[in-house]
Every structure is written in C-alpha cells, then in structure tokens.
C-alpha cells in the first residue's frame, strides 16, 4: 500500500473493520430466525426469505400510511414498524405452521417442497398486492447518512442501527431459549419429543410458537434491511442462500455456531473483497466453506438434533 499516509491506512483499517462487523450483523440477523426453525425443529424452511420480505413490506406499508395520515410521526415510525414487522411475519408463520408444516413433520423432504411452494405463493401475492416494481420506505433522516467520527472515518448510521438491533435480538433469543421456561420446553422437545410429551409438555404448541418466533425474527430482519436495500417480490431469494450457508456452516442446532459462522463468513468476505474483486471474494469464501464442511460435515459446532 505505497503512497498512502499512516492516517489514511488507519482510517481505512477502521472502516474496513466496520464493514466486516456490519456484514456480520446482517448475516446474523438473517440467520437467527432460520437457526431456530431449522436448528430446533429440523424444518427446512425455504420460505424464510419471503417472511423477511413480509417484514419489509410491512415497514413499507406503515411508512406510506404514516406519510399520508400522520406526517409528524415520520421520525419515529421506524421503531414501531419493526415491532409490527415482527408481529405480521410471526402471525403469518403461525398460520403457515398450522395449515401446512405440522402435517409434514415426519417427512422432512416434503417440508422442503411445501415451503418452497409456499415461497412461490408468497412471492406472487406480493407481486399482485404491491406490484412488480421494487419499493423503498421513506426512511427517517436520522437513520440515513453518516456520523463523521474523524475527517476520514465516516460511520454509516444505518449499519450501526442494524448492529444494535442484531445485538438486542440475539440477547433476547438467548434469554428466551436458555433462561425462560418456554425455552426449556423447546429444548426438551428438541432433545426428545416423546419424553417431553410424556412429562406434560404440549409439544404441538411448542412447535407452533417456535415456528412463529423464527418467522417473526425473519420479519424483523426484513424490516431492518429496508435501510440498506430495497424490497421487491423476489427480495427473499437474494437472502435465502446466504442464510442457509450461515446456519449450515455454524452447525444446525447451535446458536453459538450461528454467531461464530456469521462472524467468520462476514470477515472473510469483506477482507477478501478489499484485496480482490467482489465475485472472486465470494468464490474463495464459498470454496473455503465447502472444504471445511467436507471435514466437519456437522458444521462448526455440532450438537444433537431431533432425529
């Protein structure tokens, strides 16, 4: 890196670190919901991306309603819309589980097909309701722009926001799964469904709420991503591959694994991308993943999954 001053290199180093962390928070937020559904329930939810899109469209709807009816509320609506996105996607997930998924728990490959079908149905519904064009909610000013930390370092505010939301969600999920009695029931069902049923846990109810929670978190992720990208009927398909990559690489049933995997993929990707082109960086990242998975097929952190 000849020809650059130490100041410049320092600034780039700092911002590059931030680019990695911000990619990490995006990947983790995407993957959390799936990690719960895939990891805890063993359901391969191909419609995960569409639940994210549901959250994003909710945000868009609330944004345009707010703009039309209560413009004074514009600076604050975004926080509210994240909650709404969680609820909408969660309720959709609850219904999907009730109508579709619960009939297929014993046939995991069929859930893959069924949820894929569900994703197509959801995509076409978005297209019919919102049109084929991509939309973006009007974001409050405080969310956009950069915070100039020094002359050369600008910290993107939307990146900070996503990071904050990711930390909050992760902590909340950990509390739910490992400290609450509901989490205890989920883990019991994961480890041994029959025994859990025998000691009086309503395993069907546990399934339904777990699925709804996973979808709700997907919806939140979708709402948060409206700050960095736009929303279209097929937005979900952009995210689904990365999401599965993070969850599978981390080890299906381990939340710690998901975090570790999101972190390593994000750092590898963003550091490589600085030195070689974007496409090649992706190739190398995926190649490394494949090699690691060949030696550790269960992922980074393997633990017991419901068989």
């Amino acid at each position, binding site marked *: 890196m000849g020809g650059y001053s130490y100041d410049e290199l320092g600034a780039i180093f700092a911002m590059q670190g931030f*680019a990695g962390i911000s990619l990490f928070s995006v990947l983790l937020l995407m993957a959390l919901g799936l990690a719960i559904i895939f990891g805890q329930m063993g359901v391969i939810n191909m419609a995960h991306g569409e639940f994210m899109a549901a959250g994003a469209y909710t945000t868009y709807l609330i944004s345009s309603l707010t703009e039309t009816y209560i413009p004074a509320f514009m600076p604050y609506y975004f926080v509210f819309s994240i909650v709404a996105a969680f609820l909408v996607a969660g309720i959709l997930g609850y219904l999907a589980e009730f109508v579709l998924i619960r009939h297929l728990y014993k046939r995991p490959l069929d859930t893959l097909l069924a949820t894929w079908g569900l994703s197509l149905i959801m995509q076409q519904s978005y*297209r019919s309701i919102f049109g084929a064009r991509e939309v973006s909610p009007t974001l409050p000013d405080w969310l956009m722009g950069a915070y100039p930390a020094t002359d050369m370092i600008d910290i993107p505010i*939307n990146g900070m926001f996503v990071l904050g939301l990711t930390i909050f969600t992760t902590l909340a999920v950990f509390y739910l799964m490992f400290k609450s009695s509901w989490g205890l029931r989920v883990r019991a069902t994961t480890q041994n469904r029959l025994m859990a049923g025998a000691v009086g846990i309503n395993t069907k109810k546990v399934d339904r709420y777990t699925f709804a929670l996973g979808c709700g978190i997907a919806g939140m992720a979708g709402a948060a991503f409206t700050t960095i990208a736009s929303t279209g009927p097929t937005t979900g398909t952009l995210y689904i591959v990365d999401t599965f990559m993070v969850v599978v690489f981390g080890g299906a049933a381990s939340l710690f694994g998901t975090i570790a995997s999101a972190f390593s993929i994000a750092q590898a990707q963003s550091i490589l991308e600085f030195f070689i082109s974007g496409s090649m960086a992706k190739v190398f990242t995926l190649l490394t993943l494949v090699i690691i998975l060949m030696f550790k097929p269960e992922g980074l952190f393997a633990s017991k999954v419901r068989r």
Partner: protein
Amino acid sequence: MSDKSDNQRSWGRRKVVRALGALPLGIILASQLSWAAPATTTGQAVTDDTVTVGILHSLTGTMAISETGAQEAEKLAIKQINESGGILGRQIKIIQEDGASDWPTFAEKSRKLLVNDKVAAVFGCWTSASRKAALPVFEKENGLLYYPTFYEGLEQSKNVIYTGQEATQQILDGLNWVAKEKGAKTFYLIGSDYIWPRTSMKIARKHIENVLGGKVVGEEYKPLGDTQFGSVINKIRLKKPDVIYAAVVGGSNVAWFKQLKAAGITSKKQTLLTISVTEDEVLGIGGENLEGFYSIMKYFQSQDNPNNVAFVKAFKEMWGEDSVIGDVTQAAYLGPWLWKAAVEKAGTFDVDAVVKASEEGDIELTTAPEGYVKLHPNHHLWSKARVGMWKKDGQAEVVYTSELIEPDPFPEGYQ
C-alpha cells in the same frame, strides 16, 4: 405524441403508399372508410381487418420490475395506433406472453408466437441474455423483433430492430462530458458481474485511456443481487477517483446507492456518473439517495418538448398517475411506431419487405418523446445522448444534450 398530428401523419403516408399502386384506393382510404387492401401476408396472422403482434416481456420473476414499463409503453403505442386507424387499415391485436425472467422461456415463447400464432412482429425482451436466447428462433423462423433496451452492442441481426442505444451512443458521450465539464482524470469503474457491465466497462476503459488520456484507478464487479458494498466503498475512498462510473443493476443498485450515502459519499464530495439508473430504478433507490448524481441516457421523463408532454400525459392516463417512465420504456414505445412506418412504406406485413423498408435509412419519427429519431440501415437508431442530474423528487434535470449520434454497434478500436 398527440393523436391529432398522428392521424395526419399516418393518413398522409398511407396516401403516398397507395398512390403508387392504385390511386383511387388512396382516395377511398383517405376518406377513412374501414377498408383494407390485400397485403402479402405469407401465412401471417393477418385478416382483412386485423393484424396480430406479440408482446414478450417478463411479467413475473426478478426482471418484472424493469420490464413492466416496457410492455406498458408498447400497449400504449398500439392503442394509439389503433385509435388513429390502425396499420394498412387493420386494427392491431396483441398476444402477450410471459418470459418469466427465464432465458429459455423467452426462446420457447418466441417460437410459440412465431410458429403457432404467426404474429407479424414481436415487441419484447429486455436483458441481453433474453435477446441472445430468443435470437436463433427469430432468425430461423424469420420473425421480426423490436428490442427496446440500451445494450452492449456487438450485434446486428436481420431479424431485430434495436430501439435502444448501443454502447457507443451512451458511454462515449457520457465520458466526454464528464471529462470536459468536471475535468475528470481518474475514474473508478464498478458494475454488476455479467455481460453488459463488463462489455460497457471495456469500452469505457479504452476510451478513458486512449482518447481522454485519463486513468482507470479501479475496476470492480459485484455478483448480481449482492447487497454489501462496504469494502468496495472503502477501496473507492482510498483511491479518491474524480469520477465513479457505475453500471450496477437490479436490487444491488439500491443497496449500492443507499450505502454510498450512508458512508458519507454524496454528490457534494464526489462526482458519480451511471449508465444503469433510469426513473424506474429511482423509484426503488429513492431520489434522496441519488441527489446530484448523474445518469447518461437518451431519454428522461422531465424532457420538456410537446411530444414528450403528450406522451407522459397519455401514459399516466392509461397506467396511473404514479407511473414513471424510464429510458427503456420510451424506447419500447418507439417500437410499434417504427414498425408501423416500415409496414406502411413496404405496403405489406411481410417480414422481408418490412426489413428491407427499414434498411433504407429513411424511416424516421418526428413525434418521438425523446425528440427526433431515425432508423439507420444497421438496424439501430440515430439518437441523442443526454446527461441528467437527479433531484430529490426522483426526476432528472437534463444538463447536457448531444448532437444526433450515429449508431455504431461494432466500434473499431474498442473491442
């Protein structure tokens, strides 16, 4: 394009055509009777009072975002032609097929339109990939395709009329402008990773290095659909180029501009010229994220001329007040009109005759929303390049208009 002037124009031309063969018929036609002369149809779907054409765009899938506007414009043009008396006394009927953003589907639907429906012309395709997939079918079945998108050039088929601009009509003039107006010497090229951006950047690099004497300080391609630009933005920040020259498409485009703004790179600090943002894209990106950046196109919705004012009004009446019109939408609108002019000149719907009429270099549209266009014998349009500066409301202010540029799909020294 007002209905009134159109009427006059088409009737005028029709009279001339008829006068060559049968003067009395011309008089009858001019008196607006719905009567049609027998035309050579070689098995095409042409009856005494109708002619059938195909529209082939993606109504579903990722490309639906972009292609929606194109097919809306084509339908508007056809509606207006029908209202002004049709072509050779025949009303145009439309068979619409969905390419579904899937390239083999484009080939399959083209075959269906040409072989089963025997349409006289097809208006369609958007991406280069879909055109390349459909091309062999059009050449084998001797169909006629009007292709609306600005593209990388390096192609000229007997069976295709290209109503968008090819690479040199867009790229070179834009670079000249930015070098002259902004004194740009160093350029950072960034695009999505597929044929159009890569070919465009290749041409841009040659022009920058060989003609402008400037320097390319970085060239970067991101996978289609990628939404993370943090590292690229850092690289750009380190290289401090005079101009960022961008051809990022689709969902990535939105992420790219939102993240540029979030990183504090705005038009106040940085000149950015893009060849991939039209009014359609701005809907998704948001005017506030683009404010002050430049696009080089041949058409902007804000163009202030009578043709365009009438076109925008008619388009909004048909497709809703909120609709926006991008460069390709306008180019798609030209397709049916160019076809009409060629058919009337040839006096028949026969593809060979229509192509021959189109190749004589005298098919022109004075009523095009973009202004005046003329069809070159190489199947592309003479058109002007325009630089637009984006404003907060999602419209562009045209800050530069070139002379009419001759289309050159195979530019020497740029390959």
